[in-house]
């Protein structure tokens, strides 16, 4: 099947379509990880984005269904050099073709993905449209250009859970149960898996939950999740953080980190082309160790913009010196830009981060 990808700068790339027929649009972003396509595609942070892998072979080990980071494929479309039609893996249940088909999302293969990566690197992230079932490049470019900027769209409401619900940790201490309220701005399931694995119960609440809703669950700790889009769209969560600052321990990951920073008076900005991959180096200023982290973000926190002197930058990216972690000097608040929850990507910081969360929540460790 013919497929075509159009970019806002007029670039037209023709290729072979797979997955569902149809037209999608969004920002074209690239990730440099070579495993973890099932996790990445289902990561809600990719909502509103067409995901391109720099690694040329995608789908080699099939799709197991066990590695989903949400209930569905959240990326708008998939761009690859080659998609594997006949995968081989002991857990593989279907092919990447079947996944995209079932999820109603289009894909395009046969693309010089390195060329598009270089274009993105040089030009900055571009709006794009992918049409599966047509080779009308002009049309794709027109759709790419017609769409709104990602900063003008509220994605959180599209990916957040509709109603609150509670998950009990199988290893919870019945005499001292801990309850983490996880504000779902487009959470990856790995976050709650890591919390549950450490004995914490998790109450997931929608991203637009009111302060009283959050209070009604009597949280030991407030956790702001990752999610798609511009953090300035998350005004509700920002207000929640402001409200609970000083009252509850608060932690955040990725978009959650940006939301907390905004609540603490900092500014955020859009990166030229973001950080997406499993090899981002983050220096922990406390220990001096550089950790390799999994990342997926297009916005970042301006480290010099914190109004209050109470907040310090605790970690930064050694590639481009961007802020990777902050902590409040006096209050129990910290957040990281990367994904210690991994999936996909390195687990190097998983224990470091989540055992700290457990401590803040009041656990014994």
């Amino acid at each position, binding site marked *: 099947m013919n497929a075509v990808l159009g970019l806002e700068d007029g670039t037209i790339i023709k290729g072979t379509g797979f997955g569902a027929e149809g037209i999608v649009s969004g920002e074209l972003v*690239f990730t*440099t*990880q*070579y*495993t*973890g396509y*099932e*996790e990445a595609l289902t990561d809600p942070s990719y909502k509103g984005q067409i995901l391109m892998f*720099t*690694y*040329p*072979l995608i789908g*080699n*080990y099939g799709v*197991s269904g*066990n*590695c989903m980071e949400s209930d569905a494929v959240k990326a708008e479309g998939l761009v690859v*050099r*080659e998609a594997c039609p*006949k*995968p*081989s*893996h*002991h*857990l593989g249940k279907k092919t990447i073709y079947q996944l995209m088909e079932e999820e109603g999302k289009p894909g395009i293969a046969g693309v*010089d*993905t*390195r*060329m598009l*990566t*270089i274009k993105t*690197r040089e030009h900055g992230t571009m709006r794009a449209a992918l049409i599966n079932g047509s080779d009308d490049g002009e049309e794709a470019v027109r759709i790419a250009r017609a769409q709104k900027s990602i900063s003008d769209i509220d994605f959180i409401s599209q990916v957040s859970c509709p109603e609150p619900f509670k998950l009990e940790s199988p290893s919870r201490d019945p005499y001292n149960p801990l309850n983490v309220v996880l504000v779902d701005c487009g959470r990856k399931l790995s976050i709650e898996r890591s919390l549950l694995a450490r004995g914490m119960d998790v109450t997931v609440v929608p991203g637009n939950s009111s302060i009283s809703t959050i209070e009604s669950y009597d949280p030991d700790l407030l956790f702001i999740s990752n999610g798609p889009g511009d953090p300035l769209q998350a005004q509700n969560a920002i207000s929640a953080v402001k409200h609970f600052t000083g009252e509850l321990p608060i932690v955040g990951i990725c978009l959650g980190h940006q939301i907390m920073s905004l609540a603490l008076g900092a500014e955020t900005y859009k990166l030229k082309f973001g950080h997406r*991959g*499993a*090899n*981002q*180096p983050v*220096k922990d200023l406390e*220990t*001096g*160790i*550089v*950790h*390799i982290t999994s990342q997926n973000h297009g916005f970042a926190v301006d480290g010099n913009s914190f109004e209050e002197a109470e907040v310090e930058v605790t970690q930064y990216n*050694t*590639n*481009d010196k961007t802020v990777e972690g902050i902590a409040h000097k006096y209050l129990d608040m910290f957040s990281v830009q990367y994904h210690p929850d*991994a*999936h*996909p*990507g*390195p*687990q*190097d910081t998983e224990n470091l981060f989540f055992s700290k969360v457990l401590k803040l929540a009041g656990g014994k460790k």
Partner: protein
Amino acid sequence: MPKRDDIKKILLIGSGPIMIGQAAEFDFSGSQACKSLKEEGLEVVLVNSNPATIMTDPEMADAVYIEPLEVKAVERIIAKERPDGLIAGIGGQTGLNITSELAEHGILEKYNVKLLGTNLEAIKNTEDRELFKQTMESIGEKVPRSKAISTLKEAEELIDELGLPLIIRPAYTLGGAGGGIAHTKEELLEITERGLRRSRINQVLIEESVLGWKEFEYEVMRDANDTCIVICNMENLDPMGVHTGESIVVTPSQTLNDEEHQMLRTAAIKIIRTFGIEGGCNIQFAAKDGDYRIVEVNPRVSRSSALASKATGYPIAKVTAKIAIGMALDEILNDVTKKTPASFEPTIDYIVTKIPRWPFDKFVNADKTLTTAMKSTGEVMAIGRTIEESLLKAVRSLDIKMNFGTEEWSENETRMLLKTPTSERLFVMYHALCNGFSVEEVSSLTGIDIFFIRKLKNIIDMEDMVREEGFSGAISDDLLREAKQTGFTDARIAELTGKTREDINDQRRAAGIISTYKMVDTCAAEFAAETPYYYSCYEQMCEANPSDRKKIVILGSGPIRIGQGIEFDYCTVHAVAAIREAGIEAHIINNNPETVSTDYDTSDKLFFEPLTLEDVMNVIEKENPGAVLVQFGGQTSVNLALPLERELKRRNDLKTVILGTSPEDIDVAEDREKFNLRMSKIGINQPDAGYATSQDQAIEIATRIGYPVLVRPSYVLGGRAMEIVYDQNDLERYMREAVKVSPEHPILIDDFLEGAVEIDVDAVCDGKDVLIGAIMEHIEEAGVHSGDSACVIPPQSLSYEVLETVRDYTRKIALALNVKGLVNIQMAQKGDKVYVLEANPRSSRTIPFVSKAVGLPLAKIAARVIMGETLEEQGYSTCDEPKVKHVSVKEVLLPFDKLPGADPLLGPEMKSTGEVMGVDSDYGRAFFKAQLSADNLLPLTGKVFLSVKEEDQDGLLDVAQKLVSAGIELLGTKGTADFLSEHGLEMGIVRKVHDGSPNVIDMMRRYEVALVINTPEDKLSREDGSRIRRAAVDFKVPYITTIQAAIAAANAIVTMKQGEGEVKSINEYHKEMA
């Protein structure tokens, strides 16, 4: 953490000669480390016994010692140089072993030398199999069940406990040497005995087999700050049971999901932290369905780390050296981006395939089965955007006759060869898929993941499609593009479609299907990179961006193999340096991941590509260089001279020329008949010779010349299939078994000059003058391949007249062949006559040895000559070889210990894998050092077993007298003892081997023999000799198989008894000459 300020001077230990299990990778890592340390302002002292390395170039370090890698020798260097620190992890297993011994002997402490980087305990905990197992278990990591043992009885007892088959892994050996897989009790005992001998600490690990599990490797780095990064992972195609050095390997892993990949990655980091390794480290895993075992940890740079460096662009050795002097990963700049620090993980956007290169073309009788011990001599790497492309590029980089579809096997053979891993299995798999085997069947028989088998099948399906379109007339441009993207050459497409290569080439260029070049940049294009490191593919965007500077392309030499070793890489690197010094842009095309030439900062542009006509032409087409040089990369690149010239002529749109000796003149030198003609024209003496195109003609010529004669096919590399035949029966056997004679494949018959002294000359010619680098006298007589013979500079026995003739011949031949650049000439002296055996107008394997012995950078001089600077302009007005005060001996390394079953005999077919150099003020000491470096320790006390053929008896007497005068006891059979007693010499008598025990083999087993001197006898008693020599190899007893070497050894022993000379660096020797 900034670099330590208590370290000013560092000792680096190299890895010694090229051998099976250790190729050029340590020259690459050692050279990187030298550069890296000098960059930080440190003084570097280097010791290595291998002259054919870039790292031993006098300008690489402040003092370069070409000395034996042995504790005493290294101690003398330490005592003289007094370094503050030593880095162990750069010189491979050899470096680690020497360092361990230096520490155990208290030498590091005595001279206050700090061990930098990975510490001794880490080395011990990873190398000692029992400690390794305990450490792993203490952190909850699973290893295969096993036990370290040091007696055969213990091994036998383990059969019940662990079950057969069992894996035997000796402690502290390289390339799995001495190890293996035992399927029976007998095999277990045999391999264990061999393994115990090989192990430095007399220990082997007997391990339960995880045969059939997949094998993965992780290259990890750690700094003193505890930052850990994974450079890349690799997936072995062959399941466990085949040494990773013997397996086809792809990077990155293809069949692991993220969960599994992160599981192994996390384990790798936990392990490197537990051992406290600082620098690079290689960790091997066996994995199956989400479960895994730790197989091995190598706390040092390795062959795999060289591969990982080339596969990702991340300079592991360079960074390891900086970590060793205290720097943290985030303080070291990523050379590739020049902006980001080294504290990140590379990611790649292509597929890398590595295939080993095996020496079975040289050892036709050796067992081709692949096991846990290495047999390959080198490897190739290829990069592509698809697995198919990457694999096909790797296969054609191998430079072997075998290709997909060239061989046929019966169905039974196919089935058997699919089950048993051999060097041919990839081709057998192809054959099977073409002949009705299903992908499932091939996968289950080989144990190779079906994912890879399907990729191979894709190649076959593409071939079918191409063939089909070819039948119907012509191949469409669309399919042509697809075939190119799959990795097909024009030649293959032509073959499938019944067209000529030229037709296809023209068609695709007209259709705009031309190769594009992508960059290897460590980061999948996330950041702009500065590294000029490229691979070809057929994509939309090309990143090569040719400059408008003047440029020259140099062809490399491909994989390390017997007959074409690291020496040619050395020459390539020197040529590149000369070109860059002249302000011209130098581009390298090569495919060997182990070498310095494929380091991205060696050249202005590196094209990691196969060395075939098409791949080279594609680069030329893209870059439009002024010239291409073919004489530095050995036979591989020389063979491309004529085809390249023809193609350049055909393509009149390209202005590139082949510089240096013209392809026509190269052809004259290569073509025996044309060469003989030209030599006789200028009155040069040659052995009587003839050129036979049929059996009858061969017999007629041999009879005319008189037996023995030397026979070989024309156009050969490293004396392939060359033999001395003694009579007509022998000649008939040769033509029946070894080489079929036909008009297309003629053979050459030369008079064999029995007892002649062979002479090698390396020279540079500019068309007017000839600069002689050195005249080398071979120690073994003519008949032993020059690449296998030890030799000495200056000559020890040649008269003034002979040397003058040699010089005269050299000049005449170089001029007659219109040589522009390097020429190597082999001659022989018998009586007062000098004969010319062959001339090769290209770099030779002795160039680095000569350059180091006499202090002349011959390859650079040659490159400058080629660029138009005459010898006179370069200041080489006296064209005789430089006069030297010191003596340099080259000795070779033979691979017999790695190839069970092969008879360790020298002959006209080259068998050695590498070389060492011994330098001292006199011949005896230099010879002694060379032997020591070649792992052939000449005894100064103890018993020597002597057994020689009748013609060697005069020499025997000389040897025996000298040994006795040096206080050595002699051993021999009754015949030898009788002969010596006639001359008043006493000898202990032992039984002949076929007379039963106790004989010399039993004594060798009990460590009672210090040296075996055994020269091959006539056919009848050959059996005994062969068993003795094989036993010497298996029991690690030094041995000598020619009388000339025995005489040299006896002299050396006598000299060494008088004491050792002063230890001097190469820099000092060269200074003394000036």
